[in-house]
């Protein structure tokens, strides 16, 4: 008995129990399964005065999205550019480092090609990947209806794509060519969607497809398309960044 008590790691157990106690009242307060989702009703109420106008001109059920992608669409493009510059810079630094390391290790020939992170991590990654992918795609596609959107969903998708290859062999499976094609295509599509609005005589990035019915999946004009592009771009960028980090790890150990 005392052997068992000694073997139990108390700190993680205490942490988990404490986190559970904190999460429980929060999740009990959430109206799960009730349609429509009322999370974020504070901002909806606060914006009641302008909400009529917002719904009329953009048609997104999630007020935040209509601000982020329609009224402040150019800011979002700037945000994407900043993320692109940061990811490119980090990728350049990491790539040159890993190339040098590669030559070093090739000379010394002590590179361990198989990193075993353990059965537990491997199985967890296999089970979590489809769930994470589903959650990520859901968050991206419902960005104009419920809280979330391309940025958050893109990060989830990137981690989901990266987890299994990391668990197996240090993240070497993601094809860099495919990733950079997806990223470039998504970024270009975002700008093209904005340019079409310009061509139609509206300001840059004005939503231009049919608005549809408020709260439906296919509504709010081009906003879901824009968020899909943001999600693909963010996901591809972060997956590439994680891949570079993981390759370095593999080469070094």
């Amino acid at each position, binding site marked *: 008995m005392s052997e068992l008590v000694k073997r139990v790691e108390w700190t993680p157990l205490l942490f988990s129990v404490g986190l559970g106690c904190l999460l429980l009242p929060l999740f009990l307060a959430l109206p799960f399964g009730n349609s429509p989702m009322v999370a974020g009703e504070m901002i909806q109420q606060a914006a009641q005065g302008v909400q009529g106008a917002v719904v009329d001109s953009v048609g997104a059920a999630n007020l935040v999205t209509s601000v982020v992608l329609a009224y402040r669409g150019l800011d979002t493009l700037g945000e994407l550019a900043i993320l692109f510059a940061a990811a490119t810079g980090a990728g350049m630094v990491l790539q040159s480092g890993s190339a040098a390391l590669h030559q070093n290790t090739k000379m010394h020939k002590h590179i361990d090609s198989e990193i075993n992170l353990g059965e537990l991590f491997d199985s967890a990654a296999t089970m979590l990947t489809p769930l994470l992918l589903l959650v990520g795609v859901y*968050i991206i596609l419902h960005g104009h209806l419920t809280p*979330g959107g391309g940025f958050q969903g893109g990060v989830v998708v990137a981690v989901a794509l990266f987890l299994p290859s990391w668990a197996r062999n240090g993240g070497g499976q993601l094809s860099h060519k495919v990733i950079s094609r997806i990223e470039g295509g998504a970024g270009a599509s975002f700008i093209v969607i904005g340019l079409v609005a310009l061509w139609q005589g509206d300001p840059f990035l004005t939503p231009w497809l049919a608005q549809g019915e408020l709260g439906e999946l296919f509504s709010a004009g081009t906003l879901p398309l824009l968020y899909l592009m943001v999600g693909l771009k963010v996901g591809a960028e972060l997956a590439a960044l994680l891949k570079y980090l993981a390759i370095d790890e593999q080469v*070094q150990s």
Partner: protein
Amino acid sequence: MTLIALLLVLVMVVAAVTALLSRSHLTAVVSTSLLSLALTLLFVLLKAPDVAMTEGVVGAGLGSLILAMALSRLALNRGED
């Protein structure tokens, strides 16, 4: 509600101080992640789900992952400072 918020803020302060004073880099990374997690819960409590999602995904998730991978790349994850 106020009690939970107070508790969350307390957890955040403790996590921040731990991250500053801890001798082990890994503990510092985990504390930063814990801080982000508590902040996420606080955002949910304050009914800002959009911000909570960003904080949870980027702050508690990806940020900590990148920090941890950087630690392992710099071979700082085993030594005690």
